[in-house]
């Protein structure tokens, strides 16, 4: 059985990617399951999708905790503990990562003993919206049991309702990824179906009794939502060029849906990167065009380089 987990953000096509991959396996004669998992959060928040494919009926259910392949569309999720990207990844697992850098660097950085395959990042837009489809294309090749026509047919089937244009662009991106990882074709191996006899019961963890204040906190404070760091959702980052800023912060700060632009005493704006979700409305409404959109990945790389 192949157990494949896709990780990305809402809006990157993770659910679509898992459906494409599932249909492609089905077209190749496999029994298939695919299911997305997302909580209450929205576009930009971490989500995952789970695909199982096997030559015999699949009796496993639920999320995949021991993946044969983890496909990561957005490597910034590695910094989000709740995304749990590396859950169950061991020496036998393959990590497919869309981004920059080479496989050895990632293996060292993540302290992984298994195989790492890097899918070079596509243009910003394709990456933002078609990351799921690109990872599905790459995963299909890594498994080595799905042909190009089977992948193309799966995309046509899953995207039929979105029309020919969406199908064509998605197919092009998925095939580009399918070709890009050709040297690694077949690196993904099937693992044995789980047997009930091999099931290890989870260890008990004793939770101490906590005081009611801690265990069931009542909300007595205002605006506690600031404790939620929605800045982690961002794929693009707005950056203010203060030399060009007109000090008309009432415009950008009023039109920021998330109250994430503060007005300083001198009427210049300050972006709260802890909470900015990266909608880029400020970039499009700034009268002197003093705010530019920067890929979050590039902004973080620059910060890392500047750090002592």
């Amino acid at each position, binding site marked *: 059985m192949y157990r494949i987990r896709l990780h990305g953000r809402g809006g990157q096509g993770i659910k679509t990617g898992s459906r494409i991959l599932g249909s492609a396996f089905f077209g190749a004669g496999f029994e298939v399951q695919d299911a997305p998992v997302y909580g209450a959060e929205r576009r930009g928040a971490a989500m995952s999708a789970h695909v199982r494919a096997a030559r015999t009926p699949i009796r496993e259910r639920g999320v995949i905790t021991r993946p044969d392949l983890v496909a990561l569309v957005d490597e910034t999720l590695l910094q989000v503990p709740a995304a749990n990207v590396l859950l169950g990844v061991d020496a036998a697992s393959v990590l497919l990562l869309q981004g920059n850098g080479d496989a050895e660097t990632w293996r060292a950085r993540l302290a992984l003993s298994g195989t790492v395959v890097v899918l070079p990042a596509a243009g910003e837009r394709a990456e933002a919206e078609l990351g799921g489809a690109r990872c599905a294309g790459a995963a299909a090749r890594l498994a080595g049991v799905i042909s190009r026509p089977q992948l193309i047919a799966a995309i046509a089937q899953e995207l039929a309702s979105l029309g020919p244009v969406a199908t064509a662009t998605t197919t092009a991106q998925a095939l580009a990824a399918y070709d890009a990882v050709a040297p690694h074709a077949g690196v993904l191996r099937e693992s044995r179906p789980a047997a009930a006899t091999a099931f290890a019961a989870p260890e008990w963890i004793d939770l101490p009794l906590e005081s009611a204040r801690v265990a069931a906190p009542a909300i007595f404070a205002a*605006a*506690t939502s600031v404790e939620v760091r929605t800045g982690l959702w961002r794929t693009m980052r707005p950056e203010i060029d203060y030399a060009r800023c007109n000090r008309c*912060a009432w415009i950008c700060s009023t*039109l920021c849906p*998330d109250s*994430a632009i503060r007005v300083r005493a001198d*009427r210049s704006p300050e972006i*709260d990167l802890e909470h900015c979700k990266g*909608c880029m409305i400020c970039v*499009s409404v700034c009268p002197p065009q003093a705010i530019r959109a920067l890929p979050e990945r590039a902004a973080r790389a620059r910060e890392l380089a500047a750090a002592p």
Partner: protein
Amino acid sequence: MNPALRRMKDLPSTHLLGAGSAMCAGCGGLLALHEICDLLGARTVFVNAASCMTLLASYPFTPFRGSWLYTAMASAPAGAQGVRDALDILSERGRLPPEQDLTAVALTGDGAATGIGLSATAGAIDRGLDFIYLCYDNEGYGNTGQQSSPATPLGARTATSTGAHGHPASKMDLFAIWVAQRPAYAATVIGADPLDLARKIDRARALKGPRLIHALAPCPPGWSFDPAEGVEIGRLAVKTGIWPLKEYVDGRVVHTHVPHPRLPVEEYLKRQGRFRHLFEPGRDTRVLAQIQSQVDAYWEQVCA
């Protein structure tokens, strides 16, 4: 008009709605809500019907400065009635000084406002309930994947209107339904015009009785556009005359902005994926002409 709200510069520069809520990046509903909160102040109780904004306050996190009460989809006006009654009883018994009184605000999406919750709203207006009804209208059931609601406009593709010509019915006129019941106040607003919105909230908060604030809420995933374009699309909704900015006060309807010259509706429609089938692969001239003629007819009647 409140002389303190003449220019954009006069808008509040500190924002009361907390950051960190779970709404989508670029949410047009959150944009309107955050501007409205700045004007209403902290002394409010939001009574939230099931909607996208169900997720605004997810325990133990809330973006509000005041209380939040969650109700079933049809029940926000009934919830607001309970809150108002409780405040009135406290007040009568001398346990609530006037300066500590709160405003009850029903907060719903268009699904509750024009569909599931309309009868509860009609009842509340009929009883003269002293509350503000804030509807953020993203023209469909956005939280569940943008199925059609009575507020969905003609021609829009939704999860349940997938035919070649999109949604077959015209958008329900919630403002007119309210006005027919002679409320204390009713207004349409949009987050993309914060000054017009602020003046209307300022007016509404000084009045008593049932008050409607109906905000068009451009929705990046539901309407299929890049979140960065949300404000521009909102401005185009006004400039094309599709979203008339108006208010009902002292028994008459006044348009607070008459677009002139009025842009063709296509300028608004072609920016959104939900109308793409009207332009690709071929132009759907019949539906496009129908949408334009509805807008033309509206403004002819206004300017007559």
